[in-house]
């Protein structure tokens, strides 16, 4: 008898099959995405589509799950490290690697059931969410930041689950034109941003919990929009206050027929 998933049987009788058939896209396999890939493999997810055009370097070894000192001189691709991590846990998993920008080869993403975004910029998030809405794919986003303040450094982060048919990241105020414009004006001047392993781990674990509740729920309190804020100084995670002040529960940003499907159809089939 296979007891591999016996300790997670509370996820439902059919949860091993559900997870084994799940097709998951992960965009960004750095500090956050590498945690997510590993946890999904432990859960028993069977199909992965991995995107990252970056290679490991010495400064990644403080947080890249699966990355080793031997990888650094070899400049191993981050997708390859994630693939290796997944396969070590779950040798039967099907893993497709794209060591490129996801926009360059996005056809495989369209077939994913859920996409995780572990990217650094607002514009990258905006593009991923737009694509997810186009193909009716739930999008789970995580991100963290360290900023300086008069009291010292402040660690903060967020988890957002954006489900087609429900509120989007613009609806909840996480994305807006001002932020995107300001970011575009700073393009190329960002420099190296502080990143550490434990906030990535916390946010990745929150993302995995949201994913499991989405595909094989273990309780009945399902939410169409999750927006959690992480305060890394107090070690607290709370629903964003922005959700309290939303008066409109309908997304008007992705409601047009032109927001859906293949933008280049008809190709003829």
């Amino acid at each position, binding site marked *: 008898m296979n007891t591999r998933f016996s300790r997670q049987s509370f996820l439902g009788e059919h949860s091993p099959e559900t997870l084994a058939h799940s097709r998951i896209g992960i965009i960004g396999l750095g500090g956050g995405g590498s945690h997510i890939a590993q946890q999904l493999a432990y859960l028993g997810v069977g199909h992965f589509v991995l995107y990252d055009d970056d290679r490991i370097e010495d400064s990644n070894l403080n947080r890249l799950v699966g990355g080793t000192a031997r990888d650094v001189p070899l400049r191993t691709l981050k997708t390859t490290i994630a693939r290796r991590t997944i396969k070590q846990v779950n040798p039967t998993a099907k893993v497709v690697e794209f060591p490129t920008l996801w926009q360059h080869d996005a056809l495989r993403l369209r*077939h994913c059931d859920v996409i995780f975004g572990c990217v650094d910029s607002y514009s990258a998030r905006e593009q991923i969410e737009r694509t997810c809405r186009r193909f009716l794919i*739930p999008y789970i986003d995580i991100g963290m930041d360290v900023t300086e303040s008069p009291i010292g450094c402040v660690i903060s982060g967020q988890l957002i689950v954006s*489900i087609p048919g*429900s509120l989007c990241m613009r609806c909840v105020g996480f994305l807006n034109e001002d932020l995107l414009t300001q970011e575009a004006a700073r393009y190329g001047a960002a420099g190296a941003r502080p990143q550490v392993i434990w906030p990535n781990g916390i946010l990745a674990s929150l993302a995995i919990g949201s994913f499991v509740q989405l595909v094989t729920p273990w309780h009945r309190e399902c939410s169409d929009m999750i927006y959690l804020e992480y305060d890394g100084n107090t070690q607290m995670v709370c629903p964003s206050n922005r959700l309290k002040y939303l008066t409109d529960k309908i997304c008007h940003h992705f409601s047009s027929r032109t927001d859906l499907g293949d933008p280049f*159809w*008809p190709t003829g*089939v």
Partner: protein
Amino acid sequence: MKISFKITAKLLAQIHHDLSHPHPFAAERIGFVQCQVAALHGKRLLILAHEFHPIEDADYLNDPAVGAMMGPAAIRKALQIAYAAPMCMFHVHRHDHRGDPWFSHIDLTENQKFVPDFWHVQPKFPHGAIVLSFDSMAGLAWIPSKRTPIRISEFSIVGSPMRFLGVRQ
């Protein structure tokens, strides 16, 4: 060719709500789901449900031999919707039971008559028919390059929680 169909849980709930509403004489209700389409890798096709268009009460024919029969006005209006926007049209009705549904012989015969008519107005798009039960769904799609309909292999109901139906491949 493998065909997948996705619909948001909200749109599916809206369809069930409308189909549950009694008609003055028809035993069941029908409508059309307007859909977009996307190519997937490996000669797969993804149909994405966008909007439900119920058949108006006055556009049913009183035919006791079947659960519901569309009149010419219903077909004409559906063709007009398809003509106005480059999209797919899927006929939808429900069999009131739980578990996996499938089309009756009459459903299959009628579908074969009217679904290909949508190619007169949108020749490059697939069109088809969906049959719902209370908790499941099934469907057929006619694609322009084939004359015979293809069974939709998997359905994803996108919401919280997600639901997956059919053969996952």
